């Protein structure tokens, strides 16, 4: 009876174990007026004619109530009072904050003043900050209130309030927000309202489908857990292809058409936040608004991380220490954005590409790196890089006492790590290959490059295995999974994936052993429990399978695959009524599930409910018209009808 049942595995079991970052687009709305226009200098510089347009466009988005700027710049009175300070901070280019060098990568939303504009502001301040004729006054800027994209489809809040201490060094804290979605949703936009924007300096939103951040949260006292950078283990690939980054002045922006990312039930959002003490205790409670779409993604970007943290070992006092990395693109790509990242000792950050014809194409150059103003940068237009291009990163560090941001006084040897006294040097590059499957070619070569830097590396072997598995090279994938386990024997995600790869190559007993090992390593790991249940069913061990399948359904009541597996096992153990209930629910949850309709037909037919069974089989045939199991079952059913 059980032989004809179909079961679902959680597939693909890809591993993406690199630190996840993902993303709200950097606001491009207030595009900076950076073009230097050579106009003759005016006779009199006035607020109404010259200064207001500059300030309203470039300063007011943050310098207004509720935003990050400490004071408002929304009127003549506001600006006049600060004229000297504005002249000073704009001439040093501290404000508006825009660290990248102009002309080294064409970036969207460049919030940068031209030399002429800066000269105007200085002259205006020097000449007594006159207002000018009221008739020339531009309308004060207006900004939308509340959620920038209207009411979100889902609002996710932190359960507790975290209080930033009044003083001390900057705080790097990670908060876990469970997302109550049922089934998978496609996210087209995400807006973070971080709480007091004078406190929150920037935030990355990470997507955690394994509960690993939740575990870390429980082992760290207080709300959230500490750490400047977070590495999440994940057995999914998709979400980590997006930048989800917030900084002051950023609003939610819809992902480009066709680039929604998928969010599964049971997933947590992790807010990786940089918080600045203000002088008084500051309670914060960030809120995330999610905007969904029914349109599945059609374009699949990927994040490549250039880095060589293993080479970061900077002697105390060293003024110029360079860390570099490169990667040769195996396919054509468009570069959509970059996210450079270093800590306080980093000084000069460069990202560029060497094209096959020998030309050098700049992506970004930050000459005076400031951790506090790190950001995701998107290109004004996608940057095409042909196959064979080499993307490169060069980061220079100053670990001398001359670097005032040096976290150690006196300077000490600095190595890689995620505390503020450690360093990092990363350049994340978001690329869009021509075809979805090109990502597996990218992933494979990228991980092979990583193995050149770090022989035996867990992350590289695990991801390489996943890429090989995706490309149908099961045996090579199994070898790589085993290599990954040599580095980290109790990685539940890799044990589970190895099990799935073994199962796919027909080694069911070996697969069961790996699923069991995954559950020993992490008893709450549902994908492994689900897969173990499914594998035991395939072995005919229905009774043994049932508790695992029940757990899987209890944990994910809206998961059609889990319901189908449970229904199948119940049917096989003779619990037909319960089986019908589960399978009906599975078919409701996923009307396109061949397995659910087919198994439901078998269950109904076992109960003699011939008409309903025939309807279920016919539904299955609508999904897969040629499926031999369904055709066979339907013909048996019809033969039985004739006999009766």
């Amino acid at each position, binding site marked *: 009876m059980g032989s004809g049942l179909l079961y679902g595995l959680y597939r693909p079991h890809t591993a993406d174990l690199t630190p996840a970052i993902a993303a709200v687009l950097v606001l491009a709305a207030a595009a900076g007026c950076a073009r230097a226009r050579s106009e003759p200098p005016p006779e009199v510089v006035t607020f109404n004619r010259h200064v207001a347009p500059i300030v309203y466009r470039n300063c007011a988005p943050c310098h207004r109530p509720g935003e990050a700027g*400490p*004071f408002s710049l929304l009127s003549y009175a506001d600006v006049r*009072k*600060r*004229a*000297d*300070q504005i002249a*000073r*901070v704009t001439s*040093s280019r*501290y*404000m508006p*904050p825009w660290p990248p060098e102009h002309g080294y990568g064409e970036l969207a939303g460049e919030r940068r003043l031209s030399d002429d504009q800066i000269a105007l502001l200085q002259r205006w301040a020097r000449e007594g900050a006159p207002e000018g004729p009221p008739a020339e006054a531009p309308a004060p800027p207006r900004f939308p209130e509340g959620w920038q994209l209207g009411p979100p489809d889902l609002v996710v809040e932190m359960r507790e309030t975290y209080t930033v201490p*009044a*003083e001390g*060094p900057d705080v790097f804290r990670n908060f876990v927000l469970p997302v109550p979605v049922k089934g998978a949703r496609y996210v087209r936009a995400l807006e973070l309202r971080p709480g007091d924007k*004078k406190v929150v300096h920037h935030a990355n939103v990470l997507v955690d489908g394994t509960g690993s951040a939740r575990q870390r949260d429980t082992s760290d006292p207080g709300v959230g857990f500490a750490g400047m950078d977070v590495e999440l283990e994940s057995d999914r690939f998709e979400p980590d292809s997006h930048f989800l980054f917030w900084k002051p002045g950023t609003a939610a922006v819809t992902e480009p058409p066709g680039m929604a990312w998928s969010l599964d039930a049971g997933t947590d959002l992790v807010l990786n936040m940089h918080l600045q*003490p*203000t*002088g*008084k205790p500051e309670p914060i409670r960030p809120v995330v608004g999610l905007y969904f779409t029914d349109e599945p993604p059609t374009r699949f970007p990927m994040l490549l991380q250039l880095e060589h943290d293993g080479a970061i070992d900077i002697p105390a006092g060293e003024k110029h220490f360079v860390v570099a990395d490169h990667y040769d693109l195996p396919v054509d790509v468009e570069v959509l954005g970059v996210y450079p990242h270093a800590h*306080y000792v980093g000084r000069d950050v460069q990202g560029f590409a060497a094209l096959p014809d020998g030309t050098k194409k700049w992506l970004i150059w930050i000459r005076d790196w*400031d951790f*506090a*103003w790190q950001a995701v940068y998107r290109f004004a237009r996608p940057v095409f890089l042909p196959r064979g291009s080499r993307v490169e990163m060069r980061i220079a560090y100053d670990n001398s006492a001359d670097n*005032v*941001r*040096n*976290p150690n*006084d006196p300077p000490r040897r600095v190595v890689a790590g995620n505390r*503020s006294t450690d360093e990092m040097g990363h350049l994340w590059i978001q690329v869009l290959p021509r075809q979805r499957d090109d990502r597996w070619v990218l992933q494979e070569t990228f991980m092979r490059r990583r193995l050149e830097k770090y022989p035996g590396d867990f992350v590289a072997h695990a991801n390489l295995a996943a890429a090989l598995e995706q490309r149908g090279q099961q045996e090579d994938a199994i070898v790589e999974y085993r290599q990954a386990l040599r580095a980290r024997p109790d990685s539940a995600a890799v044990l589970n994936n190895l099990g799935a790869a073994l199962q796919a190559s027909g080694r069911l007993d070996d697969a069961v052993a790996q699923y069991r090992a995954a559950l020993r390593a992490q008893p709450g790991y549902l994908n492994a429990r689900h897969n173990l249940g499914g594998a035991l069913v395939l072995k005919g061990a229905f009774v043994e399978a049932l508790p695992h399948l029940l757990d899987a359904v209890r944990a994910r009541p809206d998961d059609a695959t889990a319901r189908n597996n449970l229904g199948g096992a119940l049917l096989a153990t003779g619990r037909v009524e319960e089986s019908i209930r589960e399978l009906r629910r599975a078919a409701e949850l996923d009307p396109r599930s061949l397995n659910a309709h087919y198994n439901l037909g078998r269950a109904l037919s076992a109960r003699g409910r011939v008409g309903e069974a025939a309807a279920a089989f016919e539904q299955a045939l609508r999904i897969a018209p040629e499926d031999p199991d369904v055709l066979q079952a339907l013909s048996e059913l019809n033969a039985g009808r004739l006999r009766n």
Partner: protein
Amino acid sequence: MGYSWAGALALAAVLDLAGGPVDPLPRPGAGPAVLVFVRTDCPIANRYAPELRRLHDRYARRGISFWLVYPDPSETPEAIRRHQRDFGLGFRAVRDPQHELVRATLVSVTPEAAVFTSNGAEPRLVYRGRIDDRYVDFGRARPAPTTRDLREVLTALAAGATLTPRTTPAVGCFIPPLE
């Protein structure tokens, strides 16, 4: 290089939060006075609130009087009281709407400190400048100060030392000129 100020000063328009005239400078024979210029919306000044509180708690009972000076005429007594409450700055505050104290001390930013002694007949400015050297420029700050200038001055005064007047550069929000 020290800046030294001495001489009679008529403070006609320095006001307490009730609107009455007040003179925060030390009278002849009285202990030293430290004036810290702040404003309610200056993030750099606000970040120093815990350090100012510590200095107050430590030196006020050793005969040094502490004053917060709010030089922006548009900051109301209500806003100043709220600011003091929010940041736990529970010492005396004065408004300097006509910049009499600004001119007398030549402070230019918030936060900036001015320390007076009164060994002789008139108050004497012995220190003007930063609280410590954490801020090097706008957007350029050390993770922790390497020199705590104001604390050193107060320690010396509390020990009864006579100081040569000196100044240090302060980094902070410019004090806007009067209309």
